[in-house]
């Protein structure tokens, strides 16, 4: 659908995410359901109090991977519009790091699509989180993206 691609949104932001504005963008009168996922900074990690987080991204690749998730979501689920916005830089406790909104005429597709989008983002989008504590900082344990198998030897 032409209309779909125009209204989808994939963005990396260095300032706070305006959640209400993202929701407005996916909302349309022909829908009936919007499911959103709001991921925000917890005040602890593995039992240690967190001070703040820093996110960095391989920006052009992260955006390309977010758009790929969008294409997969439209192929797999009968949804209308999708928005995926990820924050970068320093984030304080309680601030939103990622916000996903999906609109759909029927709720099951919106739930499935929103969940697929965040699950896939966490496995495949090149973004990294560093956690700052009272006594130091660590890069969060991450997930290894699925890598292509070795290329066949080219006959040359």
């Amino acid at each position, binding site marked *: 659908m032409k209309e779909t691609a125009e209204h989808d949104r994939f963005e990396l932001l260095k300032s706070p995410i305006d959640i209400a504005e993202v929701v407005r963008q996916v909302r349309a009168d022909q829908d009936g359901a919007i499911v959103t996922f709001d*991921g925000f900074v917890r005040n602890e990690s593995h039992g240690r109090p967190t001070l703040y987080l820093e*996110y*960095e*991204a*391989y920006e*052009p*690749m*992260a955006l*390309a991977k977010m758009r790929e998730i969008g294409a997969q979501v439209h192929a797999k689920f009968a949804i209308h519009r999708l928005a995926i916005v*990820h924050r970068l830089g320093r984030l304080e406790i309680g601030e939103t*790091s*990622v916000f996903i909104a999906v609109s759909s005429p029927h709720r099951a597709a919106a739930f499935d699509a929103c969940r697929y989008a*965040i699950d896939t*983002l*966490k*496995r*495949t*989008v*090149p*973004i*990294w*989180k*560093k956690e700052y504590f009272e006594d130091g900082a660590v*890069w*969060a*344990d*991450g*997930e*290894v*993206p*699925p*890598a*292509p*198998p*070795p*290329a066949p030897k*080219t006959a040359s």
Partner: protein
Amino acid sequence: MPPVLPNLRVNVLFFGRIRELTGMAHETVEVHAGATLEDLFDKYATRFPQLTAFRASLVASRNQEFTSWNTPLSPNDDIAFLPPVSGG
């Protein structure tokens, strides 16, 4: 003696703990024609021996796509050695 092939330049990007380990966000390097991503990584592992311990957890990318380590490099490729991702 192997045939002398022209060298080529690629852009290498570093992120997260790998950026901290090398102390660089990116650099442009010359590699010999026919070199693969694995060969390029090995050059960095010689310069930064601590990199070796991370090798198993890294994924390689070429021009913003995940790729296999035995992919040959082309002129002006953007190459990155990506640590496990932790967005969201």
